[in-house]
């Protein structure tokens, strides 16, 4: 019965169907099977990277190592409030340099500008972004839709991030920042405890590139939201993550970072 049903539903032309006796049908099926089966097997073996990873969701998969290139940054000048003077900007720069000098965690957004590839691991309930630069990892929780109560949450350099998918785009919302670490933002301005970051992650170019759009809002820093975008390039499989080991007691390193460079004569 199943045989007949399959047979009737195949689009193979009335001529073949008309001549098919039972023996004939068997012969034709055998021939077809012999020809199609290897193709089916080939298709399956080609599909194995997909099959082995098919999971309980059909969202895009950002997992992998991603690197910035010379043409990765689209950063306009930030629309700063008139009260953000050069003196304030310089003070934040000094804080940034202090962070680097003393091997402190840099945090957001500097960790996203790492000169080494970022590692993104997309798990079932969270997406983690790992930088080789000294920094806590970013945890983007995809299993919850609210930030923890500020009364019980200790603000951190990376803030608290929650994310959800809208079609092929991951939307990430981050609050709960502190003012420590490397706070200067691309384009100008800086992160503060009143900062609010919204990000959009989207795979482009058949998944070879990852476009991340950052929009910062902060009533104490920006006259209007400050938006810029990075485009990361997928690093070929096999990359081994390194570790930017940092010793703040390394005096030679400290001198390099804190003394004015000698002019070239």
């Amino acid at each position, binding site marked *: 019965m199943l045989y007949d049903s399959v047979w009737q539903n195949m689009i193979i032309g009335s001529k073949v169907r008309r001549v098919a006796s039972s023996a004939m049908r068997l012969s034709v099926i055998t021939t077809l099977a012999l020809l199609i089966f290897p193709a089916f097997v080939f298709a399956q073996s080609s599909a194995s990277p997909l099959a082995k990873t098919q999971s309980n969701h059909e969202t895009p998969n950002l997992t992998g190592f991603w690197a910035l290139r010379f043409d990765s940054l689209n950063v306009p000048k930030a629309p700063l409030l008139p009260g953000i003077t050069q003196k304030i900007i310089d003070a934040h720069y000094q804080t940034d340099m202090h962070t680097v000098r003393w091997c402190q965690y840099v945090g957001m957004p500097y960790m996203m500008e790492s000169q080494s590839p970022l590692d993104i691991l997309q798990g079932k309930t969270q997406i983690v972004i790992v930088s080789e630069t000294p920094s*806590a*990892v970013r*945890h983007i929780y995809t299993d919850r839709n609210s930030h923890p109560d500020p009364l019980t949450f200790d603000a951190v350099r990376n803030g608290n991030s929650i994310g959800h998918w809208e079609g092929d785009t991951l939307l990430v919302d981050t609050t709960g920042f502190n003012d420590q670490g490397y706070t200067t933002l691309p384009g100008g301005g800086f992160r503060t405890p009143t900062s609010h970051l919204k990000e959009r992650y989207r795979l482009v170019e058949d998944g070879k590139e990852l476009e991340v759009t950052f929009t910062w809002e902060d009533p104490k820093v920006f006259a209007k939201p400050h938006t810029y975008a990075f485009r990361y390039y997928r690093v070929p499989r096999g990359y081994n993550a390194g570790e930017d080991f940092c010793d703040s007691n390394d005096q030679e390193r400290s001198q390099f970072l804190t003394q004015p460079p000698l002019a070239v004569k």
Partner: protein
Amino acid sequence: MKRLFKGGASAFAVALAVVPLLFFTARPRLVRAQNNRMATGAAPAPSIPDFSGFWELAYNSRHITPAQLTPAAIARDKKMADERAAGKVIVYASRWCNFLGMPFIMGQSPPINIVQTHDEIGIFSEQNSAPRHIYLDGRAHPDADQFVATTNGHSVGHWEGSELVVDTTNFSPNGHPEIPGGGFRGTHSHLVERFKLIDDQHLQITFTWDDATVFVKSQTYYFVYHKMPPDTYAFEDSCDASDAAPYENSGGVSDPPDQ
């Protein structure tokens, strides 16, 4: 017979048309899917255990036996004990905000966070440390001249039934290298870990260290981690080496690890 041949020929012709069609329609879809969707990671397949989540140690979680050390390792441990007896109780790596690394980060009181994908497992500590990357894609360890040794080493894993076996080499001696039970991590160290879910709330990891310069025989111990509630979120360790005040009355800082 003629009809039979005729039918077979028709089927052959159809198959010739269908096979390339199958190939050319399936392959681009697969390539796109490989790049865009689920090809390079995603959540683990249902048949293998899922270690994802936050895990913490309890007061009775650590099952450690004393290590059998080489004379050189005994001398080193004695030197450190003498330093502590002399008042140098602050570990160099802690004082100067160095990455602490393995095995310290697996044995501390804050929870570890495990994120598992098909090709990689990440283990994240709230302590001042680089994360652990455990590659599951079948790669080998890199040659020592192509990889700068790290405090966490280079880890590759594979599944043996329901157990994850992780092999780690390429360690540096930096950070906090002391191994539970005695001895220390160094450039010759080799670690094998076996991850096993006892039930959905308990994860056992058995650690076995080998290093001919440190151990007379392999040093094995195991920890049992307890799963934390699903709404747990990570904190962030804040280390500020420029603030000397906490150490003013400490009696001193230990020497940096031998290189």
